[in-house]
Structure formats: C-alpha cells, structure tokens
C-alpha cells in the first residue's frame, strides 16, 4: 500500500457545489488512508472558508514530483491550463459539461462558458495520464473507458421511510437545477396530463436553483398557466427539507435531455421512490433496471401514463423499490473508494 500526496484541482469551488462536495469527500477518504495533499481551485466562493486554497498556492513549492494531481473538470477555467505543464502525474475526472445548445436562448453567458468548457476538455484529456468520467457516458466523451463514479453516501441523506407515503393526493417530485436541458417544462406538461386523467388533487414539486430569474419567472408562469395551484417550485432547501420532500414523494420524474450522471436517481432509489426518466446520457447506466425509462419518441402523454402506473400499481412500486435498493448498493461508497484508490495508486511512481 503506497502513501500518496494527492492534490485536487477544481475549476471552481462553492459551498453548495456538487463537485466541491465530491472533492471534500475524497479528501476525507485520503485522510483516512493516511495520504496528504491539498485542494485548490481556480475560482473560490469565500463562503467555502479555508478548505479549498487558491490555485496559485499549488506553485508555492510544497508539491513534489512524485505527488499526484487530481483534476476535477466541471467548467471552463483557462487558469487550469497551467496545471497541465506541471511535472506531476495527473488524473482527470470529468463531471460533464452541458452542451451549450440548451443555453443560448435563455442564458447566453452560460452558453459561452459551456461551449468553451467542452472545447477545452479534450485538450485536458489528452494532456493527463489518466482521463476518467463519473459515468461511462462521460468517460467515452473523452475517449476513455475509466469510470470513477460519484461517491454517493446515502447515510448523509437520512433514513428512508419504511413504507410508501401516506394515502392521499400523490406528490410527484423532480430535483435538479431549473435549467433548459432539465426540461422542467416537459415535466409540468406530463404532470398536468397525469393530473387531469388520473389524480385531480396531485401535486408537483420541482426542487432546484434556477439558472436566472427570467427562466425562473418563465417556468412559474408556465406552471400557473397549465396547472394553477398544483406546482411548487423551490430552491435553497436544507438537507433535512430535501429529505422530507423525498419522503413525501410518490414518484420521481426526470425528463432531462442531458445528464452526465444524475445523482437524484440514486437519491430516489435510496428513499424507495419509483423513478420515471428519459433514457439519455448517463441515466440508463446509473438507473439500470430500477427505473421506468422513456425512449426518445415517447412524449409527455406516455410519461403521464407511466406516472399513473408508478403511483398506483403496488406490485410495480415494490419491484422498483427492490431494484432501486440494488442500484444504491452498486454505487455504495466502498467500491467507489476502491476504484478511486486504484486509479490514483496506478499513477504513483
């Protein structure tokens, strides 16, 4: 067993950012293994405190040639280019960047950053010793087959409830950034069809921070127009509040057109919530046989009927719950930690 110094390098770090959370979880693992190193980022939200240092500190002289650099690539960051010149061996983990085409009409600045990020990514993949993705879908975008999944620890989410949510009007949930590629507009349409056909009192809860206020306003307007009083859009929830949303949900629906991994799928499986999702990107790989997957040609009407089955068919719910538990086990922290360790140790001198 080798003792390594692993320095993690992030494009940006913030207190609620999934990639930062992942890097900090990795750091906890490294400490448990007796490994050293530090975590730096090109852009830092001051609220993160001293857990992540500025990128420039990497050049401060404390790094040795036999250290390993772990680059978490999740956004365009021109400052990271200099890292590629460093002599240490490097592992890159791609957390996926959404293609710009979903953003041009709603957030052109985000579109530019996405376009530049995706353009820069192959350059990084070619310059590191090992390029990996958090899913096979992400890895193959880099021409790699190496997968280091998201370190998913369900214990941090709280315990699922033992039984289905109480009888009454069903609650349909989606968790994910309020963004064009997540297609919350399609979810609202599918939900409204489901509500009209099968469950007039049903509620839809959309949890996720919007990309900007204009998109948020447009989504709320659509919800009020189509399904007044039945749709709740919220963000900034605490961990406990999010867990409460999961425990009260009868089904999780995801009609995203792009997902590199989709952590909420695993959260849904953890809470025993049946999942209906569009089979795109990393979704089929993460969901396995535990979700009801829509094909590209299936419209919102089909999604509405799947919702009805997922909510009302007890046998189906039980089967999905059982399979979901197996998916959570497949993404348990221990095997992911072993994969990560193996990848990093392969880079040791």
């Amino acid at each position: 067993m080798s003792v390594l110094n692993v320095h993690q390098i992030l494009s940006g770090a913030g207190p609620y950012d999934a990639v930062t959370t992942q890097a900090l979880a990795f750091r906890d693992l490294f400490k448990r293994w007796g490994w050293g190193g530090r975590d730096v980022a090109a852009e830092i939200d001051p609220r993160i405190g001293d857990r992540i240092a500025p990128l420039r500190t990497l050049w401060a002289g404390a790094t040795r040639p036999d250290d390993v650099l772990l680059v978490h690539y999740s956004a365009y960051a021109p400052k990271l280019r200099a890292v590629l010149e460093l002599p240490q061996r490097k592992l890159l983990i791609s957390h996926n960047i959404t293609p710009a085409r979903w953003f041009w009409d709603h957030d052109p600045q985000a579109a530019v950053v996405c376009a530049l990020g995706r353009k820069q990514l192959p350059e990084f993949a070619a310059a590191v010793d090992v390029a990996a993705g958090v899913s096979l879908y992400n890895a193959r975008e880099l021409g790699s087959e190496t997968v280091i999944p998201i370190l998913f620890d369900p214990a941090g989410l709280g315990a699922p409830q033992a039984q289905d949510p109480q009888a009454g009007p069903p609650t349909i949930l989606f968790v994910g950034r309020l963004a064009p590629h997540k297609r919350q507009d399609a979810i609202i349409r599918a939900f409204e069809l489901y509500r009209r056909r099968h469950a007039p009192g049903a509620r839809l809860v959309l949890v996720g921070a919007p990309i900007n206020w204009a998109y948020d306003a447009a989504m709320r307007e659509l919800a009020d127009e189509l399904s007044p009083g039945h749709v709740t859009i919220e963000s900034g929830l605490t961990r406990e509040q999010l867990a409460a949303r999961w425990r009260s949900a009868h089904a999780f629906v995801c009609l995203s057109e792009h997902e590199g991994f989709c952590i909420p799928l695993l959260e849904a499986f953890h809470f025993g919530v049946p999942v209906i999702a569009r089979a795109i990107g990393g979704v089929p790989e993460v969901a396995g046989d535990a979700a009801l997957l829509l094909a590209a040609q299936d419209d919102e009407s089909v999604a509405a009927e799947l919702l009805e089955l997922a909510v009302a068919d007890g046998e189906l719910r039980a089967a999905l719950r059982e399979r979901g538990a197996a998916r959570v086990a497949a993404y348990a922290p221990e095997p992911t930690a072993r994969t990560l360790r193996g990848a990093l140790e392969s880079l040791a001198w």
Partner: protein
Amino acid sequence: MKPEQALAAARAAAAQRDDALAPGMSIQPTKRVSIEQLMEWANIEPDPDLMRSTRKLGAPITWVKRQLVHVMRQYLRELQSQQTRFNLNVLIRLAELEDRVVRLEERAAARPEAPAGPPPAGESPHGERA
C-alpha cells in the same frame, strides 16, 4: 405489473387518449436583449454598492473594499474607459452587420425569381464576382 411491461402498457394507454395539451404551452426563449439594451450595458458603470463581502462578519471587510475602490478610482476609471471603448466598437460593428443583413434580405426578397441554370459569366455559384 413487472417494470418491463410498464412502458408498453403506458404507450397503449396514451394511444387511447386524445387530450393533448394545447400546442405552444412551453417555455419560450426568454426575451432577446435589444440592441438598445446592449448599448446601455456596453457603457459600463459598476455600482459601488455591489462591492461587498459575503463572509461572516463581512461589514468591516466591505468597508475596507469600498475604501480601496475609492483610493484606486483613477485606475478603475481608466479600466472602465478602455472596456467601454472596446464594447462600443464591437457593438457598432454588430449593428452595422445586422443592418447590412436586413438590407441584403430585403433586396433578395424584392428581386424576381431567377431562372434555374448556370450563373452568369464572371459570377461564382455563390454569387460573388470573380
């Protein structure tokens, strides 16, 4: 029902329905920024009140930062004027190009339909003069 049967059952059930929602009820692109708005933005004028600290107990840090802005105002004005000059020149170029596209489209629309066949001598297939 087994999960493998659900999609086929849902498709069959959906095929029986004729209650599709009215078309057009989806998220439209949010409003495009007008050229007038771009002109307003091009002339950058950062609000000093936006200079603040988001740290815990950030009030004294905010005060220090604002003092720094005040001390460095000559340099910051220079930066602003350079950036504004660039922004306005790009914007003027963009406005000229947009105007040119509109005029070309209008001219193309007004032109009678040309008969199919090879382009006139001296003109490339792309309409450029040799």
